[in-house]
């Protein structure tokens, strides 16, 4: 649904995006992470056919962003960094206006607008001027606008940044629902916990280039190394009796616990457990050492900056 090759954008002498390659299937969510000014917004703007790439190409919903800009814009729903609401309009008027821009039928506009306002808890304020809305309400309305024409591709910049936890949960649920209905979604976010829970793929952009790209597990392996597991036992136990698979390395051990690094957890972890059971070890806990996206991100950034410093 979204495919880019060597996508680049130069503003005079400033290279904002440099050779971005992406491939996101229908029903997948890609999270674009990076510092402010890393090139996330420029990438999204190229995917919306707002900016022309200076090098490379991009296809969104089957359309080339340069040759079929109009079709791309018709197929994409965008939540921009600034919500872009007309303050003197009411929410109903606003959605009606964009419904007309997207040439939706009047019945569909009405039902879709009612549904979205109801879903995002804006039904009661639907006839109030947007200028009177709180920050969170405005963000929800902007999101409703992006979803108004039920697009196949959604590009969402910080979808929950101004929302209370309840609203943010609502939005996350809706994004998950959209994913299950084969929508392609790109999220730009600094909320790494949210990204962890939503994204199928993660791309970290640094100074216009993709530093890292893959699933959360792939990124963890690439940046933090192989997964590590802590095994806690009820009683003192001689771990040398344990027959470990070849790809498992013991990192540390105490009388009642030991820590292992596993190359292929899917295969090796059940073997470890079976081996423990065979030796009648009383396993209290078998858990992965917590490794968050935040750790991945911070380490990747530190390495990138260090590398840059060395260069």
């Amino acid at each position, binding site marked *: 649904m979204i495919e880019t090759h060597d996508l680049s954008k130069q503003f005079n002498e400033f290279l904002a995006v440099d050779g971005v390659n992406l491939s996101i299937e229908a029903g997948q969510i890609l999270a674009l992470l990076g510092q402010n000014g890393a090139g996330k917004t420029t990438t999204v703007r190229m995917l919306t056919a707002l900016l022309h790439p200076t090098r490379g190409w991009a296809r969104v919903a089957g359309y080339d962003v340069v040759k079929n800009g109009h079709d791309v*814009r018709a197929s*994409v729903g965008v939540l921009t960094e600034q919500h*872009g609401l*007309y303050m*003197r309009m009411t929410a109903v008027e606003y959605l009606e206006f964009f419904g007309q821009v*997207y040439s939706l039928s009047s019945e569909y506009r009405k039902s879709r607008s009612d549904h979205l306002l109801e879903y995002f808890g804006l039904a009661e304020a639907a006839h109030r001027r947007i200028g009177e809305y709180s920050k969170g309400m405005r963000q929800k309305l902007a999101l409703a606008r992006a979803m108004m024409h039920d697009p196949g591709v959604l590009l969402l910049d910080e979808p929950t940044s101004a929302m209370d936890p309840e609203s943010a949960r609502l939005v996350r649920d809706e994004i998950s629902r959209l994913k299950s209905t084969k929508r392609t979604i790109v999220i730009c976010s600094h909320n790494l916990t949210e990204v962890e829970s939503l994204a199928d793929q993660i791309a970290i952009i640094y100074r216009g280039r993709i530093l890292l790209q893959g699933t959360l597990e792939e990124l963890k392996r690439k940046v933090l190394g192989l997964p590590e597991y802590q095994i806690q036992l009820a009683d003192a136990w001689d771990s040398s009796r344990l027959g470990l698979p070849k790809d498992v390395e013991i990192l540390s051990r105490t009388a009642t616990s030991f820590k292992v690094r596993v190359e292929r957890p899917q295969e090796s972890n059940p073997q470890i457990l079976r081996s423990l059971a065979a030796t009648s070890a009383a396993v209290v806990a078998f858990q992965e050492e917590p490794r968050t996206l935040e750790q991945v991100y911070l380490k990747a950034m530190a390495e990138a900056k260090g590398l840059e410093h060395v260069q």
Partner: protein
Amino acid sequence: MFNKLRLVWLVAGRELKDQFRDWRVLTPMVILVFCFPILMNEFAKQTVDFLNQYSANLILERLVPFSIMIIGFFPITISLVVALEAFVGEKERGTIEPMLSAPLDNWQLYFGKLLVGVITPLVASYLSIAFYLVLVSRQNLVMPPFIIMLQLLLLTTAHATLMVSAAIVISVQSTTVKAANLLASFIVIPVAILMQGEAVMLFWGNEQVLWLAIAGVMIIALLLIRVGIAHFQREYLLGREIDTINLRWLWRTFRMNFLGGARSFGEWYQHVLGSALRRIAPAIFVIVLVAGASLWMSYDWVIVNVTDVINKASAENLEKIAARASEIPNLSSLKENINAPFLFLNNTRAVTLIFFAGLFSFSVLGVLLYMVNIGLIGGVFALLQLLSNQMPNIQPAQIFFAGVLPHGIFEIPALMIGSAAMLYMGVTIVTPQTGKSMGEVILELFADWTKIFIGLVVPLLAVAALVEAYITPALLANALK
């Protein structure tokens, strides 16, 4: 098509609704529409009372049309504020991106904004004029005739279209509302000067010239709209944040285009100037056609009008003219004043003036000036022909070939090439140029014009000036003997 136009109206309708919900737009409009005509009416009443003492009826007759023109103009100036922030205001408020991300074509967005920008001031102006006419009808004032009324309404429409289209161009090219407002003086000042000229025509009572003024203003307004659409790029509305004049960039871009990568003067002359000339080749063709038309028009005008004057002149006057014409002018006295540097500077100034007139009017005024210059030749030839009817010893072709042709061989092509470069510039500015900003396009065109001016026009004019100063007088004196 209907659906595409519906979207234009949709964009305009939203903005219109937004305007009518803003008291800061409505209040000055209402004041101008209903209070200004009352003030103007009072002014007219006082002026009438005063002028009646001196029986200045002619001025009185023109007072109401003049007032109508002024009354129609003021609401437009207020609406200019709305047009000026059409795009840049939305950019500043952050509402532009969802609009640009929507499936609207550039022209739909542009015309939507333009439409609302023109509708609001025009409705206000017409209402204001109508209200004033009601007040006039209650006074002892002369109502303007239908044709003047029509001219005034068209003039108001042309002013509104011109100002709003210029304001929208500024709005697209500016990065902040403040910058757009500061640039508004580039609209208000020329239009104010234009209106002074129109007021003179109105008091002078020259309807024909006023029609031409209406047509001229409308043509420039339409060209401005074309320029606006040609240079409307979503990218620039989002990309640029600061609009400072980057002199280094200006110089670098100009220099790069002027030199065109040439490593020697010969290479520059052959390749860089050569390619610039090839680019303007279609414009040269048009300019030659325009020259033909100008020559014919001026020749015809002189033959028809001067013959008419001669036919109406008394025998005594004709004798006087013939006596003067038969005297061979003392060309040696001209030499003291008209020397080669003077001729060179004069002709160079004419080509430069044509360029600047063309630059600020998308070639319209430049072509007019060129037509006047070329037209002179046809007029002079027609005069010589008329003189030869009275004095058989005068041979028009011989005088013409001796007095115009020797330096004209160099001067006329220089004028044509310089004007063609100007025409090419105007046409290119109003043509969409993908991937380039308006500034880049203008700089490239200016570099092209400079190449042609320095590389070709100036040398040709220098040779022409030398020939005109040192060879033409001798040939002309010989032909007049």
